[in-house]
């Protein structure tokens, strides 16, 4: 009995919590929906069950369109995290509930109930009340209750979330066995990657309401496409290096490709995933059997049963930037998580502070994060935005989309928030200056949440970026986005901040600018920093003229769905009014 989802969308207050999810789940499959809280996985499950209404799209169960069928007529069993047992009934009555509804004969009912209690390991508990059982036992009863009427589909919403670790493992095995025995098609929602890897035939990873990747556990663990999936399915060391047709390059070291990776032109930026078990460490270099990338110091050492966990700090490698584990802003060295099997850890002990060689046994290259530029206003002839977007996209190895305007104001369609952009590449909305001006007031709720590129006139592909930042978290996002663009365009960059007239330069401002310069120059972007004093908008405009810059990067933090006019007030409003002569990239970072 298969499940088909076709473009399922659910909105709450205009914000899509589930966005165009399409998925086929095969008969008898154990499918796990995995994602952080708020990713929309539970809402998706509830739409399959009919407990949440579908705003767009269709649900097919066993070939039958049930999109608007009530939950009681879908032939499903549902297991809740809170068990949702009927406390006024005995365990037996709970299990028999669906049979009683169907008017099944009492003797048949009793037999089925005993069979199910036996199956979940609670034979003889029929006369107890739910309140007399432990949490794990209650969830077993809930499972038996959901299966009583032999549904074709079993839907489980974080069923073991409230239980402690040992019982959770035990119940996982019980569930797997029962699911096979009953040959029921199951969809299991969880935020626990270990649970997902152990249970699933296939896993679908969700974030921000989207289904990012679907695949077998091993496939997703070893060969994820996106950084988000790589990080969510286990500890990942993620660095940005370069890929060549036959290998990937970390600094001057060529790494053998352990997995098939899309062939890319030489010099393409690549995100390289190194799982902790893929790294080899040794005190002496001669015995290394992997590609050696450098020497590092053991910073942390921890024991966790079967493996030993180490944290190793390497000196910076030119052209290599670390993405995960996250380092302090502006740090350019590399810190890797490494695990070793216990026997090896015992045979070749290392202490904190020891220097060790680090080598890579296997690595995986993530799918290239592409830039997608959405053109506002469609294909209007004579549009500067259209001309510029085409050239810009070409130099960034990205693409341009021409959606209709209505779709554009739907944030989930255009948009990529700053954090989403780390997941699926990143999105820009390009528009003519006139549109930006006319639309200021409309960038209320539902404004494009992705970055916006405003084009005032005929413009060439940028060579000199002016990155205007305020000190703080949003400024860091601005710099990271600018870094990707500058690197791809092979442009040089100036990081500038404007301070009030007649004030000295506080030390933290200098530190911030230096760290920003390191972020850029660690990827080989020629960078200088600059501090000007005066009114921000006029200083920016005069610096554009004096410095010969041809792309202005400024930040406009996204302040949540209720923000009134993100581009109207403050510096951004004045800048738009005074109309800079060069294209302006407005980076929308999300305050988290």
């Amino acid at each position, binding site marked *: 009995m298969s499940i088909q989802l076709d473009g399922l969308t659910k909105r709450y207050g205009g914000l899509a919590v589930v966005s165009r999810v399409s998925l086929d789940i095969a008969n008898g499959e154990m499918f796990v929906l995995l994602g952080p809280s708020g990713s929309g996985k539970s809402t998706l499950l509830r739409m399959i069950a009919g*407990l949440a209404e579908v705003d767009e799209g269709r649900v097919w169960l066993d070939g039958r369109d049930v999109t608007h069928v009530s939950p009681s007529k879908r032939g499903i069993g549902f297991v*809740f995290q809170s068990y*949702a047992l009927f406390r006024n009934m005995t365990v037996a009555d709970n299990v028999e509930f669906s049979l009683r509804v169907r008017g099944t004969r009492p003797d048949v009912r009793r037999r089925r109930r005993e069979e199910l209690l036996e199956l979940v390991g609670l034979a003889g508990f029929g006369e107890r009340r739910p309140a007399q059982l432990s949490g794990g036992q209650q969830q077993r009863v809930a499972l038996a209750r959901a299966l009583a009427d032999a549904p074709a589909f079993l839907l489980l919403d974080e069923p073991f979330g409230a239980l402690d670790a040992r019982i959770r493992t035990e119940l996982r095995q019980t569930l797997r066995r029962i699911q096979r025995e009953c040959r029921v098609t199951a969809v299991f929602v969880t935020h626990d990657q270990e649970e997902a890897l152990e249970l699933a035939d296939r896993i679908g990873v969700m974030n921000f309401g989207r289904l990012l990747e679907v695949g077998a556990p091993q496939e997703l663990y070893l060969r994820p496409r996106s950084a988000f999936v790589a990080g969510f399915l286990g500890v990942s060391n993620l660095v940005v290096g370069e890929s060549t047709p036959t290998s990937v390059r970390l600094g001057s070291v060529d790494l053998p490709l352990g997995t098939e990776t899309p062939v890319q032109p030489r010099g393409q930026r690549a995100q390289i995933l190194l799982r902790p078990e893929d790294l080899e460490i040794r005190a002496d270099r001669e015995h290394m059997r992997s590609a050696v990338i450098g020497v590092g110091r053991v910073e942390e050492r921890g024991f966790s049963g079967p493996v030993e966990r180490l944290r190793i700090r390497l000196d910076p490698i030119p052209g290599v930037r670390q993405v995960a584990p996250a380092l302090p802003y502006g740090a350019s060295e590399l810190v890797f998580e490494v695990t070793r099997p216990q026997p090896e850890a015992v045979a070749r002990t290392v202490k904190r502070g020891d220097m060790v060689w680090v080598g890579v046994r296997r690595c995986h290259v993530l799918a290239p994060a592409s830039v997608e530029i959405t053109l506002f206003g469609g294909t209007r002839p004579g549009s500067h935005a259209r001309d510029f977007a085409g050239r810009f996209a070409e130099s960034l190895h990205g693409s341009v989309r021409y959606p209709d305007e209505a779709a554009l104001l739907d944030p989930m369609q255009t948009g990529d928030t700053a954090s989403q952009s780390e997941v699926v590449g990143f999105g820009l909305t390009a528009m003519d200056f006139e549109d930006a001006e006319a639309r200021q007031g409309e960038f209320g709720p539902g404004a494009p949440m992705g970055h916006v590129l405003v084009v005032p006139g005929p413009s060439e592909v940028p060579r000199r970026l002016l990155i205007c930042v305020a000190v703080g978290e949003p400024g860091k996002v601005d710099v990271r986005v600018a870094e990707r663009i500058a690197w791809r365009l092979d442009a040089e960059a100036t990081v500038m901040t404007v301070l009030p007239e007649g004030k000295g330069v506080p030390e933290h401002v200098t530190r911030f600018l230096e760290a920003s310069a390191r972020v850029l120059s660690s990827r080989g972007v020629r960078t200088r920093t600059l501090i000007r004093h005066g009114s921000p908008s006029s200083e920016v405009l005069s610096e554009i003229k004096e410095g010969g810059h041809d792309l202005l990067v400024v930040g406009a933090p996204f302040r949540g769905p209720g923000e009134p006019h993100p581009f109207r007030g403050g510096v951004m409003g004045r800048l738009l009014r005074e109309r800079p002569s060069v294209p302006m990239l407005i980076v929308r970072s999300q305050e988290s």
Partner: protein
Amino acid sequence: MKRKPASPGGRPPGRRLREHSVLPGFGLSLGLSLTYTSLIVLIPLAALVLRSSSLGWHDFWEVALEPRVLASFRLSFGAAFVAAALNTVFGFVVAWTLTRYRFPGRRLLDALVDLPFALPTAVSGIALTALFVPDGWVGRILEPLGINIAFTRAGIVIALILIGMPFVVRTLQPAIANLPAELEEAAATLGASRLRTVARVVLPPLMPAMLTGFTLAFARAIGEYGSVIFIAGNLPFRTEIAPLVIVMKLEQFDYGGAAAIGTVMLAASFLLLLAVNLLQLWSRRWSGAGI
């Protein structure tokens, strides 16, 4: 106070009180509770019983069993019961709506529920009477249909519904809020119809709260005086409630007689409340909340 380690087999309830109370000193707070309850409740009631005992056994029963008094008892307890029962049904609907749905004006409606608490009961009585007399707004519509509310027993019930409603709604609201919506969803996924879900899944766990609400509304209605006398018409044997009979006795300086009727009401109320409390205890266990 020195704490002793908990015994493995569970501790006697008294000990638990002593260990977990935030008030200083169990002895002190128990003493205070008893004194307070005595001063406010027990001593006045004892005085009432004492006063009626001045009549002597024979006179006492003569007053209490007088046909007019008996009729007023029947009316008081009967109307209070009917009003409390209706309040339980409709109060449940109101509480459910207020708790489970979000709609414009919800807070206003929620605040309105408390109004009968605050209003002097005489005011609500006068308002109801003005509404239901044959040429009042509502009475004008009902009269041609042959329905008379003002100065009948129906009017008494309506007045008692008004003053009892907040008790039911306010007791049910937290109980409904605590009832997980997943229970209804679970019932739906198990194939149950709405009716079955309400009868077998929603109502049983709310039973104790409903009984509490009923009891409070009932108790309040038995003693109600102010709002009823305006709408009742106060015809002996027909629309004369027991509290009114007491007031009349008092006006005739028949303190003994008033106390005797009061004592009978007290005893009957006590027995009824005791019965409902026992029922509630049983339903609490039955609904699985007490285990």
